[in-house]
């Protein structure tokens, strides 16, 4: 009997849903990394662990946020991230370090291995900005990196990187493109900085 009641209630309430939820498009960050000239010697026999990035909790969800004017912040109704920006940026830095081949080995945050250095990534800003009347937009990314000596937990080197890119289209896709370009710029700058640190 109770099953009939449950089925009845479910059918009753499902009939009440009147608002249509729009279909969502998922976006991913696309970066194009340049190749670094690997003439560093200090880090050749060292290992590196890229720690999970620190960020605001808005960058740890799939909702794609944007800012309108100076104060208002919304998320796109029909667009979202395929991967949370926090995870995506962490993965991009991991790929960057592996491609650069500056270190003997580059490990993920959850690795069981012991490492000589730890790269801490702090995402200070990663968002699309519109003006108040939505006539212009730009993508802003700001990331701070710290290279930590794992043996004594002291900061070996640290640097902040930022990029501000005007977007081509005033929508989510334009924002994703702008953020991807901004992150590409930061990744390339970061690679150059790491190579200089390891020289």
């Amino acid at each position, binding site marked *: 009997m109770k099953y009939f009641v449950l089925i009845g209630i479910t059918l009753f309430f499902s009939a009440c849903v009147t608002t249509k939820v729009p279909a969502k498009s998922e976006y991913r960050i696309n970066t194009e990394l340049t190749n670094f000239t690997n003439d560093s010697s200090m880090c050749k026999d060292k290992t590196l662990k890229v720690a999970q990035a620190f960020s605001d909790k808005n960058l740890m969800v799939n909702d794609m946020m944007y800012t309108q004017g100076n104060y208002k912040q919304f998320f796109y109704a*029909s667009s979202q991230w395929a991967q949370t920006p926090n995870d995506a940026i962490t993965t991009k830095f991991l790929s960057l370090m592996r491609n650069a081949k500056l270190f003997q080995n580059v490990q993920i945050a959850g690795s069981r291995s012991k490492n000589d250095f730890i790269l801490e990534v702090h995402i200070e800003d990663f968002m699309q900005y519109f003006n108040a009347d939505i006539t212009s937009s730009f993508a802003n990314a700001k990331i701070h990196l710290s290279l930590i000596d794992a043996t004594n937990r002291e900061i070996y080197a640290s640097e902040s990187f930022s990029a501000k890119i005007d977007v081509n289209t005033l929508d989510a896709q334009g924002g994703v493109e702008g953020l991807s370009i901004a992150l590409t710029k930061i990744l390339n700058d970061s690679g150059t900085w790491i190579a200089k640190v390891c020289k």
Partner: protein
Amino acid sequence: MNNKVNYTFVGFLVFFGITLMLGFIYWLLQPKSDLEMAHYHINFDESVLGLNIDAPVKYRGISVGKVQELKINPQNSEQVQVTVNILKTTPIKIDTVAQLTAQGITGLSYINLSLGSRHTEDLQAKEGEKYPVIKTTPSFFENFESSLGSMSSRLSSTLTQTEKLLNNENQKQITLLLEKTAAFMNKLDKTFDEKTIQHLQSSVENIDNVTQKVDKLTPNLDKFIDKSMQWEEKVSLSLGSIMKSYQNISGTMTEVKKAVASGQFNIKDVAEDIVPTMNATLRELQELMIRMDAMMQQYERSPGDVIFKQEELKKGPGEE
């Protein structure tokens, strides 16, 4: 008238009467004392001024004899030998002593016998002695005189010392001391004005109050001590049980140590597997919490969305 008187008979009666009278007188005056008295010698080292023949000899205040003879001791010219007659019934013991005692203000003296325990032997004449010799003790005047001499010499010594003490320099020092004492007393007098004395009195009253309170508190303190002792016993028992627990834990730790040492329980190996998994789980939990937080915010914003999905979604830029 018959004149025939028997003169022979009368003469006999008269003679008989005179005989009876003489017999009575002899009976009355016979020297009984010679039979009841005993002779003793007393050798005084002091002057016996005021002591005369027939002066009384008293035993503890009772007259028991008389002085019979006074003379210089033929065997020791520094002594006066007094021969006394004392009733034989008087208990003269070997430790009995004689003392020359003044008789009022008349200047006369008598001999006073004292001491003599009833358990000691009676005094007997020694060989070569005519009579037993009673020991003497110095009289009051003798003692007084000797004490006076000693006192006089001591007084003289004291006066000499005092004279030395009160020389000119010491007199100056004493004068200075007295001046300073006077100044000090003056300051003390100024310090202890009425106000200060009142403060002192109030302080003393406060101390008295405190003392009374302490007296009242003392029983409570005793109770507290009793309770503390009980508490101490309980704590002791608790500590005993804690000690037992500690011993058990220690035993367990020893076993764990043995297991770790033998390789049965390797914390490092266990942690190496668990810690990364735990980290990953915690990260997922963090993400879950963030999603739940977002959901709760949406629910608070529009509770009906949970079932009816009524909230109107704001379209973003470029969204239709």
